[in-house]
């Protein structure tokens, strides 16, 4: 099923104008500071410029009877929405499941969603990528990655991991 979204520039311009107004509101509480260049000065300059260019775009879209429209298929919306949701769930799960478990789960689900069907390839890729990144960041580069308070991955993995000091609890 296809849907056409019309007047995207007009709608976009209105959103930009709202943002410009929002900046003014949000900067109301900021102290003025010395002379005329307090913390609110610069954001307000940006807000005025955003408002100006938004009006320019709005005027142009109205004057040119805006031909700007986008045709989108419901399948595309579903796919993009699903991938974005998967990433969001992955981010949410990281502090709870820890890097290795959350990443392996995310990779399996995302690969299946992307069309992969070979159990062996999915399994080896997901586990391989997770462990490779874990060792690379935590042990080799000493960059901390999330560790689960419930799943003791660190204890399960071979001794090499104990060389790393960057595990985040």
């Amino acid at each position: 099923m296809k849907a056409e979204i019309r007047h995207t520039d007009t709608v976009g311009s209105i959103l930009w104008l709202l943002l410009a107004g929002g900046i003014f509101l949000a900067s109301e509480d900021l102290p003025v500071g010395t002379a005329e260049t307090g913390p609110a000065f610069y954001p307000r300059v940006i807000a005025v410029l955003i408002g100006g260019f938004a009006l320019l775009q709005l005027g142009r879209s109205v004057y040119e009877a805006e031909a700007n429209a986008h045709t989108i298929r419901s399948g595309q919306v579903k796919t993009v929405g699903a991938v974005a949701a998967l990433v969001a769930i992955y981010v949410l799960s990281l502090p709870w499941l820890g890097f290795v478990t959350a990443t392996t789960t995310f990779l399996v689900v995302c690969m299946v969603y992307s069309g992969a069907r070979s159990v062996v390839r999915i399994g080896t890729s997901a586990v391989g990528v997770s462990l490779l990144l874990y060792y690379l960041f935590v042990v080799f580069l000493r960059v901390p990655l999330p560790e689960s308070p419930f799943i003791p991955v660190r204890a399960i993995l071979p001794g090499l991991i104990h060389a790393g000091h960057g595990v985040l609890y």
Partner: protein
Amino acid sequence: MLAGFFEGLSLVFQPLALSLIVLGVTIGIVMGSIPGMTATMTVAVLVSLTFGMNPTEGMMLLLGVYGGALYAGSIPAILIRTPGTPSAAATIFDGFPLSEQGSAGRAIGVATVASFVGGVVSVVLITFLSPQIATVALSMGSPEYFAIAFFGLTIIASISGDSVAKGMLSGLLGMLIATVGLDPTLGQPRFTFGVPELSAGIEFIAVMIGLFGLAEGLDRYREGIGSLDVKQDVAGITPSLSDLKNIRNVTLGSSVAGTLIGAIPGAGGDIAAFVTYNEAKRWVTDATPAFGEGNVKGVAAAESGNNSSTAGALVPTLTLGIPGDSVTAILIGALLVHGIQPGPGLFEKEPGLVFSIFIGFFVVYVVILLLGLLGAHLWVRVINFPPKYLWPSILVFCVVGAFALRASVLDMWVMVAAGVIGFLLRMDEYPLAPMVLGLILGPIAEQNLRRSLELSNGSWDIIYTSPVAVAILLLAGVSLVTPVVLEHR
């Protein structure tokens, strides 16, 4: 300068630094060979690997990825008429006809040599040019710096694609995002909304990973991530002497032109490649076969043009702190993570690092020549790598990269938000490169404007009584008005 050069040599010619260059080039070639994997995206998702390294090692890896990916974009352009990176779009014109004639190996060989010459010539040029520019820039004060940052911001108009208004709005959004955190002069929290973590500001790298990694991924899924199937094998990759003689002048000329184009902030490899290709077409009047029908000079002009722009982009990046293109913007971010501020002061404070970047980039192109000629059969196979396994892994890299910045969950959400916003903006044809310029130049412009006004007790005289600042501001005016005039012609 000489001491810095030798220090740079000693930093690059270490086993680890050289290994990182080879690793970076290999990763870059692999990723660049896959259509849709741009150099910017590859550098953005891999930047997190450098956080645990020292600045020189990190730069060697990223420069290797940058050069490798930009070179390898030519391989799918020649074989399947799909540029691996936008910079390789002009390579299609003569590369693909050569491939259709059964000379894919010859085209890849010429592209490899031209990329090498382009890269090497531009590195040599910038090694001599950059210190002079930095010396001039060092004598500047806050008003002049504000003017330079303002000039950089006006470049937004010239890289805005079809709509100047959309480009400016994208750039202003970047500037707005950069205002979150502590006010640079008074230290007051600004737009933190009671979230303590926001006091440190929004991590620029997290935004970049979102804009160029996640947004790209979402766009790929929107288009459908089907697999490619390239069965063509390549032969005769090493260019013949007659081909080398044939492309000599075009390659050298395009290399110099590409370096100069790359040095213009915002003008990336794609612009350089199109300009050098068109100039070659204009200058070579007796081309046989004609340009567009499989002339190796066309491949050489495009490839030397886009690869020479990479080093050219380092000129404003290192001398003024203004990114030459999206990738150098990420390099600035990577240096900032290590507490190093690119700009004219860098040549005084870290001469070894600056020259290690130049020397390292030279070595990158030597490695590209070797790996390009020796491994072409392998890189051709990489095009077939199934995206259904690749893209989920890249999404993981995006998340890990954002987290690795400072072990903050907030940065992961910033990355996700930037990715979704970037995807929506791309859908409505907003260019994302101006947002990057806004993110980097916004704070520089604010700090220097406010410092100038403080010095003059709030009088704007300090800006327009400086001849240098006025000259730069006039240039800024020209760069702002020209695209608007051209748009309405």
